[in-house]
Every structure is written in structure tokens, then in C-alpha cells.
């Protein structure tokens, strides 16, 4: 279900003036601290009544100041993971998890076990939130939102307090929610790798306004976004199809620019995946290197070179119909005599594409 947000509101000195339309899937709000992300999410949830605007999810108008429409919060069927937990202190973890069931009169425990296992909170069920650690509380909050059987998920930095291993367990679940259950997700994150993995659509915010919005793959491959993401996190997102799982644990994927070898990916043959290739993980060579541990050596064409402020150069490459980004030093660019239109090879370690950067494609 698509999401259409048009919100104008004033909070003290802060002016929020946000318009964007997002298709099905995960819309990620991205932006610096204080740029208004939580405010937008609150408006969608109904916790903040904008002074002006219109919010539509799928067919349903949730808010329309012109038509005086405002669906009450509890009728919006949300699963909201708040930035600060907000667990009910008087209920046990189990009761917190089942709260949405209880108030909707549906007391079945369907799905409880699955979510509890996923989040690793099985031993906490009878505790009160006061006796949880920070990360445990956050996991319970996620579980509570998931178990609300929501028509829409709102997640405000849900994974910030979690360790890497835990994150890696939860992300695929969110992907599946997006893809299989078709639950639209509005997701706030500072973590580009999360963004790359989940986002269908990215909205970049700055000081209460939308700086840039668009499909995740386009936005993340846009060299102009490097400043916003930080160089370290710049990279392209490509869609690829699983070709075969080799016996030595390497999965081969087909994309428009050739075959990609990745460390074992858990996906059926034929399924579509999104792969994020960080600019800094791509090396360029003028001739095909040999005797090297990198498995992926792709012929590419240089589309543009873009100098940053520092000693780096962002090189936009074409591989088949896909775009790749590479970040190299000026010194290398000069030594290799790279210029627009030159052909060369992109060298990519197969392991450099991290597991967390591979997500299920939207078509599968």
C-alpha cells in the first residue's frame, strides 16, 4: 500500500513542512538528529495533529485538514516502535506483547512464539519492564508492535540499541513482513546499511523539509547522496537473481553486468535479491588481474568522476544496465588515467558484500 504524506506544522521554533509520496514497501526516513523524522512518524500515527495537511495510506485517508478528517489513533491499526520504548510498566513482558490482542478482544496467542523466538525474549516473558536491560526492552517493544497485527508498521530507530548479531537476526524478518505480508513500513534509521537493506523508498530530511526522496536504488546509487550518507556508507544497490549455490559455499548471482559471486546466501534459486555494493569496496584495474583472492572481476565503463572535498574520487560505473559506485584516491585515478568513457575492470571481493546488505528483492 502506498503512503502519501503532506504535513505542515510548527513546534516551537521548528517548522515541519514535508511532502512525499511513497509506493508499497518500506519507506525510510533518513536525516540528521532533529531534522523532524519522529514528528513525521507521529503525524502518521495520529499522535501529532498537523496544523495543515493530508495523510493517506493505501486507499484510506487518515488525516485531511481540509476535509476535517482525522481517524482516531486507535483505529489506525498501527504497530509503532517508539524511539524510547514506552513499555507498560505495570504489565509483564508477556502482557505487553499481547496488549494489542487484549484490547482488540482477540486473545489468541498466534504468532507469539514466533516473535518471541525471533527476538530472543523467551526467558523474559514473566518479568516486568523495570527488570529489563536497554536492549531487551527495545526488543520487547518491537515484539509488541509486530504482534499488534498492524496494517502499517512505524519504526523509529528500532534497532539502534541492539548488537550486531541481534540486528542481523531481526532484519530478515522485517524484510519478510514487507515482502510477504505486504505491511507498509515507515522506518527511521541512521544506519545506511539498514536503509539499503530494507528501503523501497528513501526520504531524506533536513531541518523539517524533504531534501530528496526517491526509490532506494536510485537514491543510494546517486553520487550526490554521498554527502548525506557519509562516504563510508556510499554505495549502489543492484537487483540480482540467484543462479546457483556452488558446493564450496559460494552463491552465484546473475545481474545485467555479469555474474556476482557471494558467500552463501540463503535464498532459493531464481529468487531476486538486492545487493548493496559499497563504493569503498570496489577497486578498479585497467587490465584483468589474476592470482588474486577477489572472485568478482567485472568489465565496466566509467560514466563520471566526481571529486570530493578530500583526496577521494567517486567513480560512477556502468555494468550492463546497472550502475555501480567506486571510491578511489585521486592518486589512483591519475595513475590509472581514468576518464569518462574509459573501460576498465571493477574488482570486488565477494565477502565485501556483507550479508546484512543483501535483502530480498521486491519482486520475489
Amino acid at each position: 500500500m502506498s503512503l502519501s504524506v503532506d504535513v505542515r506544522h510548527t513546534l516551537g521554533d521548528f517548522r515541519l513542512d514535508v511532502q512525499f509520496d511513497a509506493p508499497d514497501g518500506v519507506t525510510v526516513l533518513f536525516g540528521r538528529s532533529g531534522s523532524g523524522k519522529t514528528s513525521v512518524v507521529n503525524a502518521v500515527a495520529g499522535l501529532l495533529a498537523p496544523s495543515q495537511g493530508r495523510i493517506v495510506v493505501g486507499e484510506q485517508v487518515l488525516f485531511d485538514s481540509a476535509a476535517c478528517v482525522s481517524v482516531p489513533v486507535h483505529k489506525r491499526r498501527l504497530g509503532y516502535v517508539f524511539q524510547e520504548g514506552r513499555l507498560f510498566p505495570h504489565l509483564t513482558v508477556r502482557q505487553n506483547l499481547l496488549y494489542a490482542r487484549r484490547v482488540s478482544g482477540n486473545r489468541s496467542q498466534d504468532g507469539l512464539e514466533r516473535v518471541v523466538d525471533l527476538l530472543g525474549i523467551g526467558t523474559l516473558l514473566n518479568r516486568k519492564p523495570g527488570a529489563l536491560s536497554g536492549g531487551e526492552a527495545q526488543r520487547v517493544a518491537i515484539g509488541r508492535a509486530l504482534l499488534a497485527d498492524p496494517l502499517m508498521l512505524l519504526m523509529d530507530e528500532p534497532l539502534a540499541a541492539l548488537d550486531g548479531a541481534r540486528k542481523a537476526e531481526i532484519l530478515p524478518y522485517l524484510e519478510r513482513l514487507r515482502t510477504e505480508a505486504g505491511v507498509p513500513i515507515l522506518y527511521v534509521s541512521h544506519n545506511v546499511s539498514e536503509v539499503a537493506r530494507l528501503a523501497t523508498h528513501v526520504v531524506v530530511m533536513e531541518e523539517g523539509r524533504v531534501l530528496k526522496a526517491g526509490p532506494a536504488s536510485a537514491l543510494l546509487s546517486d553520487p550526490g547522496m554521498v554527502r548525506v550518507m557519509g562516504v563510508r556508507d556510499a554505495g549502489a544497490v543492484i537487483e540480482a537473481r540467484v543462479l546457483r549455490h556452488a558446493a564450496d559455499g559460494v552463491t552465484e548471482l546473475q545481474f545485467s553486468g555479469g555474474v556476482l559471486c557471494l558467500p552463501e546466501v540463503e535464498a532459493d534459486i531464481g529468487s531476486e535479491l538486492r545487493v548493496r555494493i559499497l563504493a569503498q569496496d570496489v577497486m578498479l584495474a585497467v587490465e584483468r588481474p589474476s592470482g588474486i583472492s577477489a572472485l568478482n572481476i567485472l568489465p565496466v565503463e566509467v560514466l563520471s568522476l566526481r571529486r570530493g572535498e578530500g583526496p577521494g574520487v567517486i567513480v560512477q560505473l556502468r555494468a550492463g544496465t546497472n550502475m555501480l559506485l567506486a571510491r578511489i584516491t585521486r592518486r589512483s585515478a591519475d595513475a590509472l588515467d581514468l576518464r569518462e568513457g574509459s573501460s576498465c575492470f571493477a574488482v570486488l571481493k565477494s565477502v565485501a558484500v556483507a550479508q546484512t546488505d543483501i535483502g530480498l528483492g521486491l519482486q520475489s
Partner: protein
Amino acid sequence: MDFLGPEEWQAVALSLKVAFWATLTSLPFGLGVAMLLARGRFPGRQVLNGIVHLPLILPPVVTGYLLLLTFGRRGPVGGVLDQWFGIVLAFRWTGAALAAAIMAFPLMVRAMRLAIEAVDPKLEQAAGTLGASRWKVFVTVTLPLIAPGVIAGAVLAFAKAMGEFGATITFVSNIPGQTRTVPSAIYAFLQVPGGEESAVRLVIVSVTMAMLALLLSEWFARRVARRISGR
């Protein structure tokens, strides 16, 4: 027990009955008014607040007199209640309960209101996002969180109802078995020469009972608090 004579026992039993019903029946109203005062934004909120506090400010005799004028058999409300519903308050234990409830009402409301104002609205919002209607939010989140305050308010009200005298004797007089509560009985004993001894006995009994109620409520409130904090 030999400690108290039958008449004294009667007064004790009556006081308990009066205080119990006064507390119980005023509880929902107290909660409602406390919610209105804590959360409501309507014109006349301050007026309501003032009216609720009246019994605290007025000398009890005046409150009793006003009750007599209003709820007496010939009073505007009392007459209607009597003729239409057959409910007589004047000079019955029900009237004593009414007087006690009204005198205790401000205490009850104040305690509850303070508790309601201490609840974090963010938790209520969270409940809303999970599909709870206003009423469900109240029952499943607000009410459990304010339970210690509600208990505190109820206990204050009970204690006050046990000790209420001025309004009660003015409104419903001092009829043994009907409206002679412990405080009225103490008063009656103090009016007769040599009655001090009986009065002291009754004071001891009423203090003991009120203390027990207090201890019970403390224990209860602590349990609830522990339940809430999860510690």
C-alpha cells in the same frame, strides 16, 4: 466481647457500614470527577473544582444544614427521591452515608487527581497506537497506574467517613441503630456526666479499626506499586 456494650457495638457496626458504603458508592464518581479535573479542558472546570472542595471549606454544620435543606423530606431533592423512588435519606443510615461521602469527597478526588496527573501520557498514546480506545486505555493503562492513588483516596475517604460527625449529626441526627455512628455516640457519651469512660472505649475501637484499614491499604498500595514498577 465485654469491652463494649451492645449499644456501642451497634454504633461500631453502623459506622463501618456507613463508611464502607460511603466510600464504595462515591468511588466511581470520585474517579470520574478526578479524571475530568485532571484531563478535561472545558469551561467551568474551575467551578466544578470549587464545588468539589466546598465540603472541605465549609464548617461541617453548614454542610449538614445544606444537606438537610436539600435532601430532607421536604427538600427539593429529598422530596423527589421520596415520592418518585421511595428513597428516604433523612434520618436513615443512608443519609449518614451520604453525609460522610460528601464530606470525604474532596479528599478522595484530590488524591486521585494527583495520581492521574502523574501518569505519563506517552504510555497512554502507546496504548492508543496498539488499538485501545480511550476507554480501554483508561481501564488497561491509566487505572492500573493510578491504583495506588485510588487506594490512597479511598482510604482517606474511609477514614474521614469513620470520623465524620458535624455534618452527619446535623443532617440525620443521632438515632441509635439508624444514624448514631461512633462519632455521634462519642458525642452523646461526652454530653452526659460520667460518660467519658464509654467515650474513651469507643475512641479506642474506632482508632483501632481505622488503623487496621490504614495498614491494609498501605500493604495493598505497596503491592500495587511493586506490581507497577516491576521491582
